[in-house]
């Protein structure tokens, strides 16, 4: 067993630039489905990258030994000689407060217990509470030495209505943050009960609505993955993104913000140890910024957004953190707007063209001030049409997982009922 500093020094003495990304992870999770499950994970892992003469090699292990360094060196020649294969520089990030330092086991249990009351009101499929505390660090031969502890917590419910005659779609509602104290359990429960109630009797849409409203949850399920792919510098460089830099796509502003301490995807530094900062990706409709890691920032000749994401088992790729969506135009929820809450099948989208066709199992229309559930519709379109079709924001801002946004009123998508 070695330590990261000794191994980096050994690599340096052998004439290689070297980076070690290390993780010590602890996770505790509770689930109540038909039976209770309780789980406790402790793992350590190390990803070793080697650079020399424009080539890069990589190996990982759950034990840090000389062997992992030798294996990384052994595959240097698999890569192509590319001047952009260069070790990231030293960086001194200002550290966020991403761990409250509190016990997370008992609060997990205390979070699960009140959720069990839901069994009296809806058909509970599953209740979940979990917590993660992870120490992440990066050291390299350039003098980089950063580490921090990040914690996150999560509570979730899957529920539907079921009797001998009907089974309604499963509704999954979750809340997350840095501490269980930040999660409002009563609000989560009320949301589940209301949505199950809305879907209990659903009408078939007889006329296609001219406008839909994607609520924040639907935005996190549909728009977030499409945008994540499209603003990735690698995809933009390789013309695999449906969006072109400098072009105008509607009017919303999208900011990637890894420094919001409440979001569990936030980080003081990225997977290459580089200091993070906010980046505007789309400014009032103009696609103006991409996310990069060190390699893609050099390849594209743009400032690095420090968006390297990875596990210790893989080389860094590029990924967003908390995406914040802003819209200057205000709209009111109107009668017959179709409010989309939950979609399924987003992973069948064509990421390269931005085309999607998803089933909407949870949606409603507002009639005389009441939410009326709607039977499944298929919502299809593409990312550009979606962005250009945004007519304004509806309601207040919310954060759902990796999105912070108001609901968005959208026109121009196809609805098949």
């Amino acid at each position, binding site marked *: 067993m070695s330590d990261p500093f000794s191994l980096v020094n050994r690599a340096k003495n052998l004439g290689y630039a070297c980076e070690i990304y290390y993780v010590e992870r602890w996770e505790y999770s509770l689930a109540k489905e038909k039976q209770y499950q309780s789980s406790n*994970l402790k793992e*350590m892992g190390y990803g070793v990258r080697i650079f020399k003469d424009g080539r890069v090699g990589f190996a990982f292990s*759950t034990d840090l030994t000389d062997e992992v360094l030798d*294996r990384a060196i052994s*595959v240097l020649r698999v890569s192509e000689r590319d001047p952009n294969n260069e070790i990231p520089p030293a960086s001194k990030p200002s550290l966020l407060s991403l761990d409250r330092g509190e016990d997370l086991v008992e609060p997990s249990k205390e979070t699960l217990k009140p959720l069990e009351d839901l069994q009296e009101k809806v058909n509970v499929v599953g209740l979940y509470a979990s917590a993660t505390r992870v120490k992440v660090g990066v050291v390299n031969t350039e003098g980089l030495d950063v580490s921090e502890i990040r914690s996150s917590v999560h509570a979730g419910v899957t529920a539907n209505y079921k009797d001998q005659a009907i089974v*309604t779609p499963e509704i999954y509602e979750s809340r997350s943050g840095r501490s269980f104290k930040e999660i409002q359990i009563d609000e989560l429960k009320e949301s589940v009960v209301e949505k199950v109630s809305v879907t209990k009797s659903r009408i078939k849409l007889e006329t296609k609505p001219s406008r839909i409203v994607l609520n924040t949850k639907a935005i996190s399920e549909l728009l977030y993955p499409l945008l994540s792919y499209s603003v990735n510098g690698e995809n933009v460089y390789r013309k695999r993104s449906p969006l072109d830099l400098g072009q105008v796509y509607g009017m919303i502003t999208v900011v990637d913000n890894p420094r919001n301490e409440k979001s569990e995807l936030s980080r003081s530094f990225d997977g290459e140890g580089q200091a993070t900062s906010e980046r505007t990706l789309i400014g009032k409709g103009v696609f103006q910024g991409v996310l990069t890691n060190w390699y893609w920032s050099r390849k594209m000749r743009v400032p690095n957004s420090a968006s390297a994401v990875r596990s210790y*088992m893989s080389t860094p790729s590029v990924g967003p953190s908390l995406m914040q969506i802003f819209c200057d135009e205000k709209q009111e929820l109107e009668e017959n707007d179709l409010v989309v809450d939950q979609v399924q099948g987003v992973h069948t989208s*064509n990421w390269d063209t931005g085309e999607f066709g*998803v*089933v909407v199992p949870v949606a409603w229309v507002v009639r005389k001030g009441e939410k009326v559930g709607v039977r499944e519709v298929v919502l299809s379109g593409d990312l550009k049409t979606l962005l250009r079709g945004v007519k304004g924001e509806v309601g207040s801002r919310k954060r759902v997982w990796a999105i912070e946004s108001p609901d968005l009123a959208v026109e121009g998508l196809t609805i098949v009922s």
Partner: protein
Amino acid sequence: MHELLKRSEDLGATFSDLRLYDVDELSLFASETMRQVTSMGKDKGGSLRVLVSGNWGYAHFTKLNQDIVRTAVESAYGDERVNIVLLPPLHDRVEIRTKKPVTKSPEEIMNDMIRLRDDIMRADPRIRSVNVRFTNSRIHKEYFSSEDREITLDYELSNISVRAIAREGDVVASASTSMATYLGYPLEVFDPNEIVETIKRRIGNQLRGKVPKGGDSDVVLAPDVVGVFSHEALGHLSEADLAINGILGNLRGKRIAEDFVTVVDSGRSDYPMAHGIVPYDDEGVESRDVKIVDRGVVSEFLVDRYYSAYLGERPTGNARAEDFRSPMLIRMRNTYMMPGDWSKEELIREIKDGYLLVSPLGGQTSPDGTFQFGIQEGYRIVKGEVTEPLRNVGISGYTLETLGRISGVSKDFGMWPGYCGKGGQSVPVGTGGPYIKVRVKVGGNE
């Protein structure tokens, strides 16, 4: 018995089992702009599960030590009502041998990938961007239980997947294909030219394809699509943990389709791409074939030890975990619809105005019985003839309604590889079937 299990008993466990994983991973990536090793190393760790006073406790670890037992026992939580099927003692060692072992170095494999990449780019000048990925996992698993079951599994899974992008004017097309197998090096087990031809055909079709009109339509689904339908629309609903809250829960013994519809989940198939191989599952249970629908009648569900006891169904061997970090979930293995009597051509001839849907893009289902999946290769059928290609197609519907609408099943049969996601875990599965004629909702963009 393993010493950790003895210690678990000493601390009050009435049942315990230990999974140890040692997986050698290699993952290579090549595109038109870069090539590199994206992952290589040993993923080594384990998971100890204990049943203490009717509650489960789990400890997943990378470092094996005596503290693991206390962690697992102390994490036990619940209502003291867990009851599982116990099995007789068993010692077994299973090694699934490859026919074309991966003997090449990472550098030599990368050279093969570069050749494949270049062949694809030459196949159609409109192709501007190609991703070629190769993965190989050499898997060694050990299972020990307090029932004195000791099982060792050794097998290897390899996959080569390609995704290409083409542009012509303002039209962008993308196509993908993959070949995965437990038989060894995919570029020797299969013909690499098939990959090139498939990508070329799909790109060409996408660039000139028409978006279909949305609505209900008669279609012929090809084996690849039938496999995904069997998996997504039916297989998930038969996973006992989902079935008890879903539409299949009350339908055991009830007819939902014609006699010629039989759907099976199996831990072993001879088809090279049926890589959902599970001789023993991750709970040390022998794998057996499960007829989810037997000649049109809902027959059995996929179970783990807990649901085997809960439903009174013989164990099936469907408990799987992605890795040592993950808890076991009820998962499919190789799921397929059995072949019938029709020929593919006869099914197509029956359709006056509809579609032939050849290759899916993955899909999703909900326990209320709705399903949806995308299609990357499809054609319009007019008066029994296959005509123009399609683009941007998806299909959806209600599983029970759709199964009841199957009006023909072909003799032709095929199996395809896939990866199934559930509960944040991904496991390799096989999906397959014949050609079938059915009526579904086709979603287009017009």
